[in-house]
């Protein structure tokens, strides 16, 4: 190779070279030895790696991503599991928070594991290779704790798949002293009964403080040489921890505490989000994952009070991170990860009192870098469009709004405080600002819904289409698209609608036909959420402990990745329900009076049942309830119960 291959183009370098000291001709820079290689991985790592060439997307199973932490010489290893594939799990912010937090505790290593896709799972089983963590390739069964997020009901079979591949006994009652502690947490922890026999313990609520306390209790128990039963009793004393085996369901399916267990478990909550810094150096995946970008959680909790929304009830109260902290953490995360996008996440980002200030500051700091800022969800109002204009360099991606229902009456029932005029005004503003696509979310089967409400969706979409077309130049009208996504309403525990029946599958199909009658076709992309998957979700969301047998039977019949359309098979589940002797239709669509026994009565989000009942009554009378973060307390009781308060960075504005 001739050294003279350097072609220092003068046109490139000349101008700048004059300004400063003359640069020496830039020679070849060669690094000597690279950093010493990490300690060689063991035999299991080699066996796992030998499978990489035989599976789809092996990047799912690689370790050594940027930011991954591998620690040797620790006495306590915890494996954090997201019960779906790598590309979905790596989008989970709770996992990133807990990973950061637990790895900062002396003597503790937190590692990750995701559910292997079917091809890899088959190979692991065929070769007898136990499921292991990514970082140190430690078998899950050799970790002290397996912490599993329960993001939604359709991942329940994946929990069993994970335990089985890990060669950990499925049932808590079968685990021995050397087996890991299996802990669940996350949104579905608010009714964990369908998974109760498989989980040793469940954390209710936020993990920032509780996760460390649980690990400390476990380590103290190990140090004291306690047996498993004593450990579980000790864990039941940690606030927010529910130990299902210490409760026995009564004839109505209500779990009753055995001696020593608390009668009611109250969720954990952090009083101040800023006391817990957003993880600024999260693991950066190689493969293209869902939400592949830096994130900063700007607000936790939302008190808009939509009556169908479980997140809006269980994550109360609202706590904002201040503008300075958001800007600082966003820039620090970008610097540490190298992402080209940062997302400001929350349940309703446009509600953040200092959002405009944050966006202007970030825009200034990121100018010329090609790095963009994104907002995950928008409110239906002009302010939100203005905020979207501040962040969106391109107008291609489209804006998403959720009117939820087609008529004002039904929107009042669900407390979605949005009018037709709000929506149409917002759409006109978006299209005249350059957008050519919007996506609208609606729900079918909300309580009190009539066929007129359903036709109202089609009529509203037609008006949106007409206003959108009128707002753009005539030659661009062909480009106007409105996406309409319709899901089936699933009543969830701990919401004012927790007593309401879900539509039967038959009725969903009839109402879908009604919707098609009035839905405009031209320029509209209509998509449905699979009603059969929603039905299963509804059964699991409000089922009691008897469902565990059905979950296990469905998994044994081959059910995994139920949230994936191509994998989901309701038939498999119906057989499983029958074999377990439960009637899924009665659970999902049966009528419950307020006051009827519920399988999650012993678990509390802090929102009082009296408040949920009152909200239900207001719903049926189509009365709305305002958002307490904009005005007065509405009496949900969270703040009194938990000793917390709404935390805002400034005064909130907007509607």
């Amino acid at each position, binding site marked *: *190779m*001739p050294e003279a*291959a*350097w*072609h*220092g*183009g003068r*046109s*490139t*370098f000349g*101008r*700048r070279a004059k300004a400063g000291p003359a*640069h020496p001709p*830039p*020679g*070849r*820079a*060669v*690094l000597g030895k*690279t*950093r010493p*290689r*990490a300690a060689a991985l063991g035999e299991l790592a080699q066996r796992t*790696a030998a499978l*990489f*060439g035989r599976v789809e997307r*092996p*990047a799912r199973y*690689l*370790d*050594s*991503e*940027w930011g991954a932490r591998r620690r040797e010489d620790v006495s306590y290893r915890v494996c954090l599991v997201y019960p779906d594939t790598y590309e979905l799990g790596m989008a989970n912010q709770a996992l990133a928070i807990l990973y950061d937090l637990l790895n900062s505790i002396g003597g503790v290593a937190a590692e990750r594991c995701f559910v292997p896709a079917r091809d890899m799972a088959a190979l692991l089983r065929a070769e007898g290779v136990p499921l292991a963590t990514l970082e140190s390739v430690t078998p899950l069964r050799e970790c002290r704790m397996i912490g599993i997020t329960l993001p939604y009901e359709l991942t329940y079979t994946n929990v069993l798949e994970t335990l089985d591949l890990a060669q950990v006994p499925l049932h808590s009652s079968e685990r021995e002293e050397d087996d890991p502690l299996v802990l669940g947490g996350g949104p579905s922890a608010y009714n964990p009964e369908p998974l109760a026999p498989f989980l040793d313990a469940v954390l209710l609520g936020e993990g920032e403080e509780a996760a460390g306390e649980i690990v400390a209790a476990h380590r103290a128990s190990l140090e004291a040489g306690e047996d498993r039963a004593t450990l579980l009793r000790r864990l039941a004393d940690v606030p927010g921890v529910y130990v299902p085996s210490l409760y026995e369901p009564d004839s109505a399916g209500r779990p009753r505490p055995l001696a020593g267990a608390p009668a009611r478990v109250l969720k954990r909550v952090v009083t101040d989000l800023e006391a817990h810094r957003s993880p600024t150096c999260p693991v*950066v995946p*190689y*493969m*293209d994952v869902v939400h592949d970008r830096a994130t900063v959680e700007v607000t936790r909790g939302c008190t808009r009070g939509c009556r169908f929304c479980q997140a809006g009830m269980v994550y109360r109260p609202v706590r904002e991170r201040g503008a300075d902290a958001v800007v600082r953490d966003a820039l620090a995360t*970008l*610097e*540490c*990860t*190298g*992402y*080209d996008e940062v997302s400001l996440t929350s349940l309703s980002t446009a509600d953040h009192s200092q959002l405009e200030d944050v966006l202007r500051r970030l825009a200034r700091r990121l100018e*010329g*870098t*090609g*790095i*963009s800022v994104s907002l995950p969800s928008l409110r239906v109002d002009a302010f939100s469009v203005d905020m979207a204009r501040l962040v969106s*360099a*391109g*107008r*291609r991606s489209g804006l998403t709004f959720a009117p939820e229902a087609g008529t004002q009456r039904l929107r009042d029932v669900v407390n979605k405080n949005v009018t037709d005029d709000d929506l149409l005004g917002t759409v006109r503003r978006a299209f005249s600002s350059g957008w050519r696509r919007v996506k609208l979310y609606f729900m079918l089967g909300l309580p009190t819904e009539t066929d007129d409400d359903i036709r109202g969706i089609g009529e509203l979409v037609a008006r949106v289409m007409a206003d959108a077309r009128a707002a753009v130049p005539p030659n661009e009208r062909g480009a106007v698209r409105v996406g309409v996504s319709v899901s089936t309403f699933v009543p969830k525990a701990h919401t004012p609608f927790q007593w309401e029946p879900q539509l039967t599958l038959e009725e969903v199909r009839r109402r879908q036909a009604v919707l098609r009658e009035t839905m405009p076709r031209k320029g509209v992309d209509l998509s449905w959420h699979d009603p059969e998957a929603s039905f299963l979700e509804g059964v699991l969301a409000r089922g009691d402990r008897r469902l565990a047998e059905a979950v296990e039977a469905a998994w044994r019949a081959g059910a995994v990745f139920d949230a994936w359309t191509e994998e989901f098979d309701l038939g498999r589940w119906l057989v499983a329900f029958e074999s377990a002797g439960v009637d899924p239709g009665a659970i999902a669509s049966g009528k419950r009076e307020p006051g009827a026994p519920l399988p999650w009565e012993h678990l509390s989000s802090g929102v009082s049942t009296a408040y949920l009942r009152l909200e239900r009554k207001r719903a049926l009378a189509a009365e709305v309830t305002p958002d307490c973060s904009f005005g007065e307390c509405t009496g949900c009781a969270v703040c009194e119960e938990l000793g917390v308060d709404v935390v805002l960075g400034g005064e909130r504005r907007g509607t």
Partner: protein
Amino acid sequence: MAPDEFRLRARYRKGGRLRFLSHLEVARALERAARRGGMPYAVTKGYTPRMKVAFGPALPVGTAGEREYLDLWLREYVPAPAALRRLAGATPEDLAPTEARYTRAAEPSLASALTIARYEAVVDGVVAEELEAALGELTASGELAVEHKGKTKVFDLARSLPEEVRVKADGGRSVVTLTTRMGPEGSLRPEVLLSAAFDVAGIRDAPVSVTRTDVLMEEEGGWARPL
């Protein structure tokens, strides 16, 4: 290219477990490394500005690379040794950049200039002499028809294999070294050639581990490395 941009060419590797990354994943990882390293990279004009960076010919999932290249355009001049240090310090070890130098603005793209690839393929459990004979028979036949996604592509082996394929025994393994010519008309992958050789010799498919050891430009009078 804007007149005040600087074209930095870096050599990197793709090794260890990261051989299982796709080309897109490697490219994204290195772009992120450039941002983490605080490189003053240039961005494209337009609605969605992106980092100005270009890579050499793609490596498939599972194939390692010893001498891979990228061009990164910078807004500011950073002496090459400093640029290399910043880049390498922010890159996972198995993708580590090891050389960097500025190159002429007008030079053709790496993807089009690099047309020669050298490979080393390690084949487990196959007798070297048998494999050598099979490869000899195959190349003597002059052509190789390859099925890919329902289409048949015929490689002219004299053109696709500009150098003799060599086989060496190494314990129970055979080490095959070969050189291929890449181009818009198609690039012969070593696994494909070996698989055809297995067929000729009646050998069952054996595990093959492929490393691209070099990528070269064809110049008058010979081949040259781009750096």
